[in-house]
């Protein structure tokens, strides 16, 4: 396929957290608010002159300092962020909106806070640590709204004079929804029999939408969408099977690339930093406070593994199967970053149920944070691709016999 016009530029933006567009927005008076988790509603970090930056630690090498502080038995993503923070890589931030969702990320944030990674220049810098409830009933919604109001909106207003009114939040939701619409429409090309966008390309676009100021990328996303409408796929399919990728945090598009190079086209991204969930529009009514509505939608749409109420567990299983059908995938890959407790359980649990009860071919793998060159992972995916192909051949033969 012909290269997408902005793809290389987007890819270059992903090589650092404090990228060109972040610097540009800050030079224009913008405030960069860092966050890591879906449970910190990013729309609230995009009020007025604020813009959200979902934190990554691209080009991570050694993590010696972070390993001293957090031991070598904790999530590498959480450690990579701490290492980058200790190196001074997040000094550009004006606030860090953390959540108390998983142990490692929580401790990573607390280490950053105690070790003062923000430096001394940002006098109004503030930290927040949101208590995210473990379910989605109305009690949880009220609790979540109280936390966000007190720990994010209030300090934004008090420290930076940001307008946190209903109107201001609705304005931010509009921009958020515009980005979500674009990403969703772009993502829909993955439903084609021979998709005109690869999982790797799509992941780059999604990541850009999480890590760059939205007003600076929205035009380019629009152009990319237009480009995709006329983009011709390669005549010969350059994949052998299609898969849904489900699991823990993936902020490195090269991991998706590795999977695709092994013959499995990633047609749906159900992982942290992916678009399911995260790039769905927020639908607001005029009947109740907008913050409550946002909180409800975030909690109800959350597919995070920490929500273990039975209806949530079932929803995750059904949703995986639904994505497989909607995007015409041949199988599902469950992945987890090493030392992630939640995904370790979900991966073991769901991969068995999806395989045995939903009859969907499933691969279950764990991986390091930087896994772009993992030969072991490549071999596992290749074997999975072959196993699906063999199943297809057998099914075809069985059909012919009948």
């Amino acid at each position, binding site marked *: 396929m012909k290269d997408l016009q902005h793809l290389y530029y987007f890819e270059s933006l992903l090589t650092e957290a404090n990228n060109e567009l972040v610097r540009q927005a800050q030079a224009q008076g913008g405030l960069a608010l860092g966050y890591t988790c879906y449970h910190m509603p990013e729309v609230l970090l995009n009020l007025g002159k604020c813009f959200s930056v979902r934190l990554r630690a691209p080009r991570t090498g050694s993590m010696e300092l972070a390993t001293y502080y*957090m031991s070598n038995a904790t999530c590498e993503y959480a450690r990579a962020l701490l290492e980058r923070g200790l190196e001074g890589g997040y000094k550009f931030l004006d606030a860090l909106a953390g959540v108390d969702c998983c142990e490692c990320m929580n401790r990573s944030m607390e280490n950053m806070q*105690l070790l003062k990674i923000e430096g001394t220049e940002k006098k109004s810098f503030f930290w927040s640590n949101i*208590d*995210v409830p473990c379910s989605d009933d109305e009690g949880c919604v009220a609790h979540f709204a109280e936390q966000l109001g007190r720990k994010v909106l209030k300090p934004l207003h008090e420290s930076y004079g940001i307008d946190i009114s209903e109107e201001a939040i609705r304005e931010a939701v509009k921009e958020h929804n515009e980005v979500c619409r674009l990403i969703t429409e772009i993502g829909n090309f993955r439903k084609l029999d021979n998709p005109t966008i690869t999982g790797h390309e799509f992941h780059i676009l999604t990541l850009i939408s999480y890590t760059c100021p939205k007003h600076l990328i929205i035009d380019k996303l629009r152009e990319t969408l237009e480009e995709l409408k006329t983009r011709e796929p390669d005549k010969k399919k350059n994949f052998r099977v299609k898969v849904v990728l489900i699991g823990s945090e993936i902020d490195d598009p090269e991991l998706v690339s590795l999977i695709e190079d092994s013959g499995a086209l990633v047609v749906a991204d159900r992982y942290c930093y992916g678009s399911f969930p995260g790039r769905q529009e927020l639908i607001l009514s005029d009947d109740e406070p907008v913050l409550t509505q946002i909180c409800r939608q975030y909690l109800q749409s959350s597919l995070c*593994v*920490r929500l273990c109420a039975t209806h949530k567990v079932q929803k995750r299983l059904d949703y995986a199967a639904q994505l497989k059908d909607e995007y015409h995938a041949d199988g599902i890959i469950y992945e987890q970053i090493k030392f992630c407790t939640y995904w*370790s359980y979900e991966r073991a*649990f769901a991969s068995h149920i999806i395989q045995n009860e939903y009859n969907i071919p499933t691969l279950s793998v764990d991986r390091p944070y930087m896994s772009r060159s993992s030969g072991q992972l490549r071999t596992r995916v290749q074997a999975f691709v072959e196993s699906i192909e063999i199943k297809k051949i057998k099914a075809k033969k069985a059909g012919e016999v009948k």
Partner: protein
Amino acid sequence: MAYNPKTGKGLGNIYKAERRCTVRREWRGFRDTLYDYFRWLKMLGMLGAVLAPVLPQMMKGLTRYRWLVSYITTPAFVDRHTIGLRGYELRYTHLQFFVVLRNSAMTLRCILERDENLNPKSKKAAALRAKTVVFDEMMPIQIMNGFPTLKGISIQMLPIFEAGEIDQQANMYYIDAVEHYGLAADVCPLPAADSGCYIVDDYPRIGSAYISSSMPCDGSLASTMFSHRYFKMPSYQITPPQRFLETEVQEYAVKNLWGAVEFIEQQFNVKFDWDAFFEGVKRYNTECEYMLDKWDVNCTPYPQVCGAGLALHREYEMQIASSLDPAFVKYDAKVSKLMKKGYEKSKAADDKAKYRAIVWSCPAHYYSNFTYWAQNCWGIKTLVDMECMLSYHYYDEHDKEKVLLDMAKGYERMAMRSHSNGGYVNALDECWKMCEKFSANIVFMYNHVSCKNFAGLQGLFEDQARERGIHLIWIEHDLMDPRTVSRKAMRDRVNRYMTTVFRAEPLDPTLVDYDDDLTW
């Protein structure tokens, strides 16, 4: 002291590498040995009396449930925790353990007489199941004080939690089962063993509604995926807030907890009995008072109720018995009376502890008598254990709204959760505060290799201990899996620290190096 310098014989000689139990019992002098035998007989008598009515189910259960077999070694469990103890300390420990084991035996009887697997056709068992609420692990069942006509049972406590403390080999099979299923080996072995127990269908079926929880950690929360699927019962999830030091979160906490009460009311068609509940609250407050007394004495130069006798007792009293068993108050009163005498005697003899330590982070289940070993070998008294510092605030005894808030705060401060959740201050700052309170300059810092929560603060602990001049002795363990870090390897960490940093000589050199990998 048990070591005889003339003969060179000491407590280490009662272990043999190839033996599962000790070679012989310890001679403690006439009075103490006689007392020890008396308690031993009393415990056997108690176990026989409590379990005799369910003897057929017990025999059947031994062939059905792998974990149940571990309970045959219960006397050895008590022996392990009393080795080297003399006088009052021996008596406190026996009393503390007796009441815990009595409560466990009664729970075991309840399980055996209800279990559908063991009593498939019994109408009596079915009727009992219809009145039983099953609770998730690591969660107190205090709310059951308000349902005197129902029975609440913490389902995982006997098959996994306590079994692992009684027999270090008990949990391995379940851990292996879940790892074969695909769970990563780096997660905490406690919820892993829980999940494994579900996978191999080794949990009894004893109730008709299930209350799960998000306590105390990520692994525990995630393992409820398995339990919900296994029990297939109507369920409710108690999910206390994480940041529980904030006043604003309590409204949600109370609502969420009261939701559990309403759930039970609906499922069993009963009303919450406030009078009965307040009776339980009174017992809880009395238990707290006794525990705080023990702490106060341990803050003096003459500590009395120390080590696992203090920690395990409080954990079981608060979390499992949850003020539902009046025997705890009775035994607390006995220990308290003895403690005061013991204190006077120690003071008169100026019998001070050689080294004063506290235990921090999660201790190894498979080596719950570790602190007694440290006392016998090096003279290090463990004055308090993080595990016993779960909820200890008083509950209101009259006001319904206030008591619910108090109880919600109690649930937020459960074992492990009280320090691992709610922000770093509960783990870090609290540790130094306790060192100061108990005048301890040694911290047995349990480095549970699969606990990401405490691992995430490792460097900060190290830095801050250095700043304060506190001896932080890191002791690796894997909670329920002695194959990862053996008991011997745990002891070696202390041995190395004591010889290299303190330049100390062991009180009993035979305890420095011995092999107990095979023992229960």
